[in-house]
């Protein structure tokens, strides 16, 4: 995507001017400090160039060597990882998207983080049924084939677990963007809007709430207000062009754009229309936000603006030494689009506007970049997302001032990475 389409929307003048002023202010620029930007003269010819390499001489795999293609074997480290001490059993657990290994805005299906409450349900497409019941004119049952005959839409949305960064409420704990911010993914979904689907059954006038229920062995259930259901919710059977992965709810899951991931019920089997919320386990015992005074917020569905620098980060140190350096990361908001992302190199003392690149969709991940000449001094890297509603991602201490440290959920505070002079990065908190 060209810069004209992505670079100019935000306030505050041209990014280049801002960046230059910012670097001067932070004491990082100046001609004498910039190292290694020119071409380096090699001491001897590179054998990778002067010798004929095996891949340049012999035949490689033919077509169909991998009928369903996998990433290069050199990318075998790009995997989801879990934090074993978090949970008692992998069937009711979570793992984390390797966001420090990815770029752009779309999360590849195979590394979208998993969260299950009773393991992955294995449902053959011909065995799939979706029921709509409750306060409707017609209680209905659909097969997957029925659903494929309804009008379809495509939308890109992020899914963030409400507990993403939840381990960091009491302070810096996990050394890796994958672990602090990896309960998120961003996919293009193909499916049918709930507006279309519920119209098939005919919602009665008093139908103001929807219960979504999964077919897995936890029968995951959440209450969703009808206004949201009819606004932008959908059921999806494809993600990024192919069938949902089993661990993402194959064959059909619910999409609740911008709202906490727990509501995106997988292996969706039933939608019930009612006139009051159900207050089930995942909206009372869990996914409520305990505050310092001992009371708790309920129905904190919306995910507010948040960002994180994915590179460099603790699992992805700077390995190229001084000179031209690219900082990149992700920003998102459950309210709408991201308007702007700021980056700080000095722990939030001075900020400069980052450059957004890639398509900007409603309630989708946005990719930002910030390029600068690194002189090798310690950095305290932060990013700050600002969404189109004008919400500015708060600091962790500002969040704690409102909420205390026992909330578990909805920690969207600003993350700090301490980049040492050798390029290593560490999860820290700053004053």
């Amino acid at each position, binding site marked *: 995507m060209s810069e004209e389409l992505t670079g100019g929307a935000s306030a*505050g003048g041209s990014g280049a001017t801002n960046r230059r002023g910012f670097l001067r202010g932070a004491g990082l620029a100046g001609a004498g400090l910039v190292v290694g930007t020119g071409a*380096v003269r090699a001491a001897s010819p590179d054998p990778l160039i002067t010798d004929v390499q095996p891949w340049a001489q012999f035949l490689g795999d033919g077509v169909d060597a991998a009928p369903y293609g996998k990433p290069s074997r050199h990318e075998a*480290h790009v995997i989801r990882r879990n934090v*074993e*001490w978090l949970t*008692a*059993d992998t069937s009711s657990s979570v793992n984390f998207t390797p966001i420090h290994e990815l770029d752009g805005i779309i999360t590849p299906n195979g590394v979208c983080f998993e969260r299950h409450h*009773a393991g992955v349900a294995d449902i053959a497409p011909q065995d799939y049924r979706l*029921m709509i*019941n409750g306060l409707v004119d*017609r209680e209905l*049952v659909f097969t997957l084939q*029925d659903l494929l*005959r*309804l009008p379809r839409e495509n939308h890109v949305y992020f899914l963030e677990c409400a507990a993403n960064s939840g381990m960091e409420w*009491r*302070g*810096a*704990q*996990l050394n890796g963007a994958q672990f602090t911010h990896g309960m998120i993914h961003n996919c293009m979904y193909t499916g049918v809007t709930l507006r279309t689907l519920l*119209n*098939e059954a005919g919602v009665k*006038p008093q139908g103001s709430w929807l219960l979504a229920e999964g077919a897995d*062995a*936890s*029968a995951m*259930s959440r209450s969703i207000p009808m206004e949201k259901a009819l606004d932008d919710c959908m059921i999806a059977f494809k993600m990024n062009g192919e069938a949902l992965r089993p661990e993402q709810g194959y064959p059909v899951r619910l999409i609740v754009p911008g709202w906490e991931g727990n509501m995106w019920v997988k292996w969706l089997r039933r939608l*019930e229309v009612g006139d009051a919320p159900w*207050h*089930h*386990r995942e909206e009372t*015992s869990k996914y409520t936000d*305990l505050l310092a005074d*001992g009371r*708790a*917020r*309920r*129905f*904190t*569905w*919306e995910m507010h603006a948040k960002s994180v620098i994915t590179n460099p980060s603790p*699992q992805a140190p700077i390995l190229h*030494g001084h000179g031209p350096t690219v900082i990149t990361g992700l920003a998102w908001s459950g309210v709408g689009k991201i308007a702007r992302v700021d980056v700080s190199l*000095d722990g*939030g*003392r001075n*900020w*400069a506007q980052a450059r957004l690149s890639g398509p900007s969709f409603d309630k989708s991940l946005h990719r930002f970049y910030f390029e600068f000449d690194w002189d090798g001094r310690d950095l*305290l890297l932060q990013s700050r997302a600002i969404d189109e509603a004008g919400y500015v*991602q*708060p600091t962790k201490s500002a969040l704690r001032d*409102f909420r205390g440290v*026992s909330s578990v959920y*909805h920690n969207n505070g600003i993350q700090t990475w301490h980049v040492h002079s*050798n390029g290593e990065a*560490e*999860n*820290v908190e*700053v*004053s």
Partner: protein
Amino acid sequence: MSRFLKSGLLCAGAALVALPAIAQSSGLGRAALPEEVAAWDIDIRPDGAGLPDGSGDVWTGEELYEAQCAHCHGTFGEGMGSWPMLAGGQGSLTHEHPQKTIGSYWPYLSTVWDYVNRAMPYGAAQSLTPDEVYAITAYLMYLNDLVDDDFELSRDNFGDIRLPNEDGFYLDDRVALEWPVFTQAPCMSDCKPDVQVTMRAAVLDVTPDDPTADARRAQARAMAAASGGGDAAASTPEVEPDEEASAAHSPELIAQGESLYRACRSCHQVGDGARNSVGPVLNGILGRVAGRVEGFRYSPALTGAGDAGLIWTEDTVSDFIADPRGYLPRNRMSYAGLRDADERRALVAYLSTYSE
């Protein structure tokens, strides 16, 4: 108040506005049969809507609970290992490590009935009869001191019951309360006088292993050492192995710790073949979440501390053994405490040599 709820969603008739005359239905799908709806429509609401006929008493519930629930949730609902704690914790919600149980936190009893019925026992969901679910729910009330042991729960008396924390919840008010602060124009320069690092994740050292990240960090260190921070493009350094943290302790300190450890030996085992006895095995304690040794029955205080994020590090172990009861009230370790900080340092150094 959530922006959605504020916009009038909860007012009667809101759905009328939200559903304008839309297209005719396609006629796809088929009518759900009453038997099919009955089979899947299992949800229960706080007003009791959805509850089937039936009843169950505390004693029946205790038998069922012991057989089907206690191996994860503990005999007293205290939660084994990382499994959820179901009882106790009253009054803890404002503490540093709140315990969110049915008695201390959950707002509605219907949630218990609904969840046990739809998802429990773990791995054998929807295998309980309605009477059994009533009985287990009654027993969970008993474990939370909400009823006496002669209590019987039924559909008829369900609506009379209130959980203690029902009024402890209120609607999302982030937009009203926080947004006025979080929508102010952000500062761009000289936003604070000085920046200090106040906490580092590396101190806790609870991050899962990532060999690729380890190799990259070693490469960063090796490059810095080789080049003195110079031109990176010219060097292709060797990857060096990470150093063990325990190497920091002197053999003398570890030997002193071994001698001090004799006071612990009557209750705790460590080393090859160590097993749980009066106290849990101590192999690999550093870096572990508190209250997590498999097969050891901890006090609710200790598992609760682990649930709340207590990690055993050199510092937290040292603080704990200085005064176990003071550090973690109501834990079961009967040990008066080791007051000398240097001796604690030696003991912890000794324990650090037994990683798992």
